[in-house]
């Protein structure tokens, strides 16, 4: 059994009432770790769902982004919000930062949106 830790690196065993009393527990201690998502992706793959695995791997990438940025990317992907150029730029920026799966998703959106009139 692999040790489970929070995004902060704190092992979940340390998520105790005593730690809460000491004021040691922050939001990062409640967030899931990308390695956990990767592990779950492997399990999903073994259970006949490669798409769920892909989703969990995209999620692992997104643990590195702040909430505001995550919501901003979501907003950009909604219909009519971003131009094809903006989406392509977004994909490149994600790719440069190592979020290759998210980048691929955005790049594909850019292509289909342009063809289907879903861009700004």
């Amino acid at each position, binding site marked *: 059994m692999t040790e489970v830790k929070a995004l902060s690196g704190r092992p979940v065993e340390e998520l105790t009432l005593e730690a*809460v009393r000491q004021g040691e*527990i922050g939001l990062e201690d409640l967030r899931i770790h990308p390695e956990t998502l990767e592990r779950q992706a492997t399990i999903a793959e073994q259970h006949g769902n490669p798409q769920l695995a*892909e*989703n969990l791997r*995209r999620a692992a990438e997104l643990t590195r982004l702040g909430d505001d940025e995550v919501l901003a990317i979501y907003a950009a992907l909604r219909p009519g919000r971003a131009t094809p150029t903006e989406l392509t730029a977004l994909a490149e920026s994600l790719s440069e930062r190592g979020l290759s799966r998210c980048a691929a998703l955005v790049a594909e959106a850019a292509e289909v949106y342009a063809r289907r009139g879903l861009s700004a």
Partner: protein
Amino acid sequence: MTAEDIKAGGRPASEAAGGRPAGAAAGGRPVGRVRFMDAQRVNLDGFAVADAELGLVAMRSPYDPEPGLVIRDGRVTEMDGVPEERFDSLDAYIARHGIDLTVAEEAMSLPDVEFARRLVSPDVPRSEIVRLSAGATPAKLARVLALLRPPELCQAMTKMRARRTPSNQAHVTNRLDDPLLLAADSATAAAFGFREVETTVPVLADAPSNAVACLIGAAVGAQGVLIQCSVEEALELELGMRGLTSYAETISLYGTEQVFTDGDDTPWSKAFLTSAYASRGMKMRVSSGAGAEVLMAGAERKSMLFLESRCVALARAIGAQGVQNGGIDGASVAASVPSGLRELMSENLMVMMRNLESCSGNDALMSESDMRRTSRTLPIVLAGSDFMFSGFGSIQRYDNMFGPSNFNAEDIDDFLAMQRDWGVDGGLRTVPEDRIAELRREAAQLCRAVYQHLGLDDFTDEHVERAVDAAGSKDLGETDTLAVVAAAQAIRDGGITVVDVVAALDETGYESVAERILVMTAARLAGDYLQTSAIFDEQLRVLSLVTDPNDYAGPGTGFEPGPERQAEIDAIRQARGVEDLRAEQATSAVPLLAVVGPSGKGAGPAASGAAPGQDPREVIIGVSPAVGRDVWRCLSGLTVPEVLAELLAGLEEEGCTGRVVRFNDTVDLGRIGLAAARLAGSGIGIGLQGKGTALIHRRDLAPLANLELYSVAPAVTPELYRLLGANAARHAKGGTPDPVRNPYNDEAIEARYHTTVIALMALERAWAKPGAPPEELSLEGLR
């Protein structure tokens, strides 16, 4: 407006406009039989003529495409008759991510009937259907499912559900967003066994407060319940990021590009959102279901099943672990057309075939008719689903801010009885009355303590008491709804997280619930509950496709409730045994009907005793063996002495006298009455069983050929017993009185009393001894 008004107003124009329709009676209105039928509640429902042009067609439209798939160089170049260059955004996403190309050729070339047979057959394992379905296009799966008849849908669902153990989800909401009531109701829902609690708000700004109240309440009720606050996506994600909620399911998908875009999303934005939830460690499922496209006039002439098949293929393609479908908000649209309910269930099954979690609808009241709404839900309960309801309204209909669910608090006892009737696990259990009170009080008090500690709101003792006792928000009286908005604002602005709630509980002396919430928060970090069909059980074990896979392969396999769970299902609070009845009867015991001596002949041949009475005006009232011992109260609610007093008074009104004799050797009323008649100076006897059934007998008749009989014991009144006494007297005097008519009503008398009758007869039987002589009982206190 009554059903009749609506129906009359809604009659076809041809009838309303000209003359008397052929079927009408004189006066231009339908005959009474039709008017009576019109007035039934089912006629409040709308029924639509199927119309493919509008997409108002359930299983198959002439405009649905032929299933087809062309693959070139590892790429889908045509799907369901549409070439790649004309793919809309849904086709494009499904074609690129949603089809397993390694099995596509095999799946697509499998004849529909053969596919359907494999789907139903217990000999073909679930994994094989999952494998094949992954290679099937939306049109293909729709065609296959359209071949299944209702029992086959049940059979396939039993096999295809992802999680072995079925479960259920509750709605917990109220009109006022009252936090104390939400906490009490959330605790109640958790105690009833719901493993997911979904709340929402009439006032959007209240959402953070609802999430906190439901979180606290559910933790009081049971460990491991997942919480959802269904609001707009950014806020919902924010609540999840703070650990206040633990799953989401209102991420909507639609079956046409136009409606999808009108919903302000694309497959890519939804795919991203799906990952966003997972990145914050939140379980999520998407939501779709028939009718949404029709309601938006965007169905593009396709059948509901085909459009939903696109949604489900897309759900799998974007990587969601599950789907809430089966109509949802559009359930009554599907229900309005032929085979609509078949379509709704097929939607759930399709989700299971795509190896996803099914949260099976039943969450919108689809009919005014209790029979129709039960008919909609029952097959899914029998088959078993990951979640039978994507929101059973655990609160009253009027408090359900999603709109009334198909089942609500009004129906919880019905549902518990249905589980028991069929011996199936619908996910719910009985909670003892005092336990409900205890949990509601604890939840309301803890919620108040947290709100006070965090400076959100101060609630009075009276408010707590009202929330504990309330059957719904109308029982709360005036509440300060602005304070709720302010509390919610403070939670949002103050960045309050689950840790703050845990700390507040701990500091206000509720350490065990604080611990419970914290442990659950930690458990979520392992991510196991992000797998398909995951729930936590009460020991915080994750049950999912991975840890609790459905292994149904025909009779003797798959999920069966364990002995403990079966006992829980069986032991509804209304169940009564003989001992319960004995204790209940004992509370009506009085020091009357004492034995004054042996008397006359027994009912059976072996009996012997004193000589019969000589007075020609004497009528004997024979009573059954347990009367005056274990049985004191009749089914009508009258006590046995009260009934005897009426019978004696009736006899005396007509100038006769009566004696009461208990016959100890039979429980049969005919034999008791006949024995009484043989002992009576007049030759006329009255037989009375402790449960209240009574008859008049004559000494020369056969046991079963009595003169008059009151067979409906629960409905007999004091006046009727007096009349029976008077008629017995008239028979004694040689008259032929007008027989007393049995009272009848339209209630389910047998359903209500048969179990009591069985127990009462068991008490009677226990006192009956072959050959035991009759005994005369004291008349003291009976006049």
